[in-house]
């Protein structure tokens, strides 16, 4: 069984402790959302899991054969066109023609149009860049997908559209997703488990399991669940939500 297992993970930048005793596991096909306030070490945790930072204390075992990362800022190569950016992860493994066709296919799926294919990132809107970012991450058909607040700068319609793309490809390829967000509703909509990470130092103080299958979560369910979360003492404390008097 492929899984990502994080145990007793601590992390420091200099003398500042960023993460403290993090333990969780992510199984095949599972979606885990990490929520917490900004600056709480969420991105650091994700980068550690994706092996972009070196683990110094504790262990991270990753037995997925492939993974991809979608960043909050799209990080497209400015000197490459949309299609060239999308095919970047596979261009050295497959023939150019094959990689190109694959990139076109996935670009269309992510709502990009034929006329956009030869544009450079400077000519794209923020939303389009994020579509390219997702297409690039998913072109490798990764078994494990890391998402670093990729929906945060998008409007509601586009946010939902891209979330649905991610959900449908999870279903299709049985992809596992580890994503971070500060949006509780987003976490409730797409994850199986939600980890609440408090800051200074980052520590998982609660794990919520959302039982309702993803396909059956309608708006009403999400609103009720979000409300429930917002009344949770730990959530209030972690996000420092002030009561309206």
């Amino acid at each position: 069984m492929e899984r990502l297992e994080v145990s007793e993970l601590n992390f420091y930048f200099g003398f500042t402790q960023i993460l403290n005793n993090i333990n969780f596991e992510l199984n095949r096909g599972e979606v885990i959302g990490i929520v917490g306030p900004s600056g709480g070490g969420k991105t650091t945790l994700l980068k550690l899991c994706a092996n972009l930072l070196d683990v110094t204390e504790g262990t991270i075992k990753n037995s997925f054969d492939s993974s991809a990362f979608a960043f909050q800022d799209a990080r497209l190569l400015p000197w490459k066109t949309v299609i060239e950016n999308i095919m970047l992860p596979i261009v050295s493994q497959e023939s150019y023609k094959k990689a190109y066709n694959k990139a076109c296919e996935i670009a269309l799926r992510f709502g990009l149009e034929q006329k956009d294919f030869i544009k450079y990132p400077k000519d794209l809107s923020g939303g389009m860049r994020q579509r390219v970012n997702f297409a690039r991450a998913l072109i490798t058909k990764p078994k494990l997908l890391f998402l670093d607040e990729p929906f945060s700068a998008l409007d509601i319609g586009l946010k939902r559209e891209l979330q649905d793309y991610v959900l449908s490809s999870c279903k299709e390829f049985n992809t596992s997703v580890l994503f971070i967000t500060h949006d509780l509703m987003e976490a409730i909509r797409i994850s199986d488990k939600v980890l609440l990470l408090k800051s200074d130092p980052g520590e998982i103080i609660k794990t919520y399991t959302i039982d309702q299958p993803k396909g059956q979560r309608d708006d009403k369910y999400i609103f009720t669940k979000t409300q429930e979360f917002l009344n949770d003492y730990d959530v209030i404390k972690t996000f420092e939500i002030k009561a309206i008097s």
Partner: protein
Amino acid sequence: MKTIFKIIKDFPWFLWSGWGSIASIFLFLAFWDMGNQLYGDLILPSPKEVISTMITLFTQQDFIDNLLLTIKRGIMGFGVSLTIGTMMGLIAGYFTTASIMSRPIVTILVGIPPIAWIVLAMIWFGFGDMTVMFTVIIASFPIVFVGALQGSRTLEGDLKEMMDSFHISFWQKCKDLYFPHLFSYLFPSWVSALGMSWKIVIMAELLSANDGIGASLAIARSHLDTPTALALVTTMVGVLLFVEYIILEPIKKEVESWRD
């Protein structure tokens, strides 16, 4: 390869887009002719006379030899400063200490006027090739060096991290990340260093050589031969315009199409 093909394919369109520039050049010629009518032939010969002198010059073998010699000196000096400047700049940019240390040295080098270098070079190397080339090298080196230094200092960690997240090989990283990034800094600095080299080579020849276009200019001055002097200047500008607009501009347009 694809890029080269595209540059050639777009070339006629590029030429067609040059009408505006040609019009402004003709406007310049018109003002020049007005100057001629005001001040007379000795002070400012008419463009027509200068162009006909230029044509006669081009029929003389020793002028062609001088022109080629100047071009050779310019290219050799530029080539040396391009190679050394690029390499040293890239290396210096890689190390923080080296880049901080090189800053004041570059300021000193830029601050010393080329004419001072010519004097020193004449003392060190005497009259001839070496003095001219040395001056060209020393004057264009800081431009290339600073370009390369900035290129390697600004290599982005974010994009590298993105490439690491896809387990992209080192060679592909060089090809798709490092090279395009560095080139976008190097190319403009090479272009301005080339322009600089061309101006310096003529100045250095004028003062410290017996041959080359610069020396011919010195002779024209001593004979008070204004038409020849202006014909030489026009030739120099013509070479620069040719290199800049016909050779470099289409390349620049193509390789920098991704920029804002």
